[in-house]
């Protein structure tokens, strides 16, 4: 897709549609949009907020009614201390940020080589690399491997696993994109005496930013919200936000304590929601730009 058609398309698309749409049609459509949003999003989110503000007695059977008195802040305080949210938050940041960074760095380096060398063995290496996109890692064996190397239950071990899992995603996204960058740019730099590392960091990497932003968003979402792998690998030794939610919700102590579970969910979703609120336009255009090449 060329950028020219992409920019022009919405405009003309609109005018075609506007010609066909009457004014009542527009209003009906707007009402429908609101109704659909209320049904599909309103009910669950309303329940989430209302229940998080209730006392335990009221929250045993979660329903849509307003709490008799709001105790949202008290509930927040309880989960922050009981759910060890502060250390969980930093745990999540400590795992997510390096994992995403390393996966992107190594992934784009590998993708550069894979895209530029077109020999037969390289094609096989590429197929092998992106097959990780699809093949599930054998969790239990990975865990045993980490146990043998003494890395299980540690943050570096977890980072290694995430980098391994999501490297293929990055390679897949980036390789296709690098192929569209003209080789002549790199050749010019090479003639001017730049080494491979310098070419990569000063020429290739800046050109990759649009795709890398898509990959960053997706990989961050996956890692930040992952429970499955961290359940196995950390086995409760490090606090992560989703892991602690799992513990809070499955501990017998908290059974049916919906107000605490929901208070936890609200607090836990806040960091990503805040990032999303500030960067939503960028995130949405990043995803749509990168996914459909």
């Amino acid at each position, binding site marked *: 897709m060329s950028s020219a058609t*992409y920019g022009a398309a919405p405009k003309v698309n609109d005018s075609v549609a506007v010609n066909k749409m009457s004014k009542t049609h527009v209003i009906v459509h707007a009402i429908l949009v*609101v109704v659909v949003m209320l049904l599909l999003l309103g009910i669950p989110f309303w329940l989430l907020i209302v229940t998080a503000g209730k006392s335990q007695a009221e929250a045993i059977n979660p329903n*849509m009614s307003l709490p008799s008195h709001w105790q949202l802040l008290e509930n927040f305080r309880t989960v922050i201390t009981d759910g060890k949210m502060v250390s969980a938050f930093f745990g999540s940041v400590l795992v997510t940020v390096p994992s995403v960074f390393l996966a992107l760095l190594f992934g784009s380096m590998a993708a550069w080589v894979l895209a530029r060398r077109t020999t037969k063995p390289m094609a096989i290496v590429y197929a092998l690399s992106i097959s990780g996109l699809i093949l599930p890692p054998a969790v239990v064996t990975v865990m045993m491997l980490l146990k043998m190397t003494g890395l299980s239950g540690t943050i570096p071990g977890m980072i290694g696993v995430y980098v*391994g899992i999501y*490297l*293929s995603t990055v390679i897949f996204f980036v390789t296709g994109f690098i192929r569209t960058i003209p080789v002549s740019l790199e050749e010019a730099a090479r003639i001017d005496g730049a080494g491979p590392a310098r070419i990569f960091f000063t020429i290739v990497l800046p050109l990759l930013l649009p795709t890398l932003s898509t990959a960053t968003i997706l990989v961050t979402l996956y890692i930040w919200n992952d*429970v499955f792998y961290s359940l196995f690998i950390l086995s409760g030794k490090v606090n992560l936000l989703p892991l602690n939610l799992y513990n809070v919700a499955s501990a017998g102590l908290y059974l049916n304590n919906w107000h605490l579970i929901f208070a936890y*969910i609200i607090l836990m979703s806040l960091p990503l929601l805040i990032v999303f609120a500030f960067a939503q336009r960028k995130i949405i255009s990043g995803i749509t730009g990168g996914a459909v*090449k």
Partner: protein
Amino acid sequence: MFAFTNWSAFSKTIDFNGLDNFRDLFQSGTLTRDLRTTFIYAVLVAIFQNTFGLILAVFLEEDTRLNRFARVMFFIPVIMSALAVGYIWQAVLKTDGALNSLLSLISGANVQIAWLGSPVWTLVLVAAIHGWKWMGLSMLIFLAGLKTIDPDVLEAASIDGANRRQIFWKIKFPLLAPAFTFNVATALLGSMNGFDIVQATTAGGPGGSTEILNIFVWRTFGKGLYSQSTTMSLVLFVMVTAVALPLIWFLRRREAKTL
């Protein structure tokens, strides 16, 4: 790097296990049941996620302010933790949960439907929840696909007298094929490796009817049955490979076409 996560570990499992685990799992019926459940779940999720996503994309196609706002709102479930989504829906669908009390209020009678209690329909519902969580992403990708359609083609069709339905089914729908490939592939693969939503809503119940492979892996792992757990992870691996290889081929061919 890839070898580290999969292949070496993969060959090690064969050395450890032998075939006894397979036979045990097969004879107890768990293997076939969980395989079937996982497969049905994945297909259902792919159907739900893409139907929801496509309907939303067509519905919110125009760039009005309200539509743009709605797109942002529908993306919120995507950025939330799947575990959290599971718990929220469990609260909505519980027998004495929000949906039943709402229905009671509307109908006047006391509605007591055990939404997550039926061995047959629970799987469908959980798949729908999974679809609900990811529909925002599918929607965005379909929207991007719709935007790449050459407006001249649409204009030509409308001049030729095609109505809106014809334009959609005859022109837009076929041209969305690349977006479809991407969405179906990600939905299938994501749900085959799914865990969080099922764990949070039903944890495999009622009576193991929603026990997908990863739930089994976690359950047996929790019991300390490492070898069984590993066997199942291997089965999942083989199954996904069987589905994935044609898919990789397909994706690569598509990539070659766009270049």
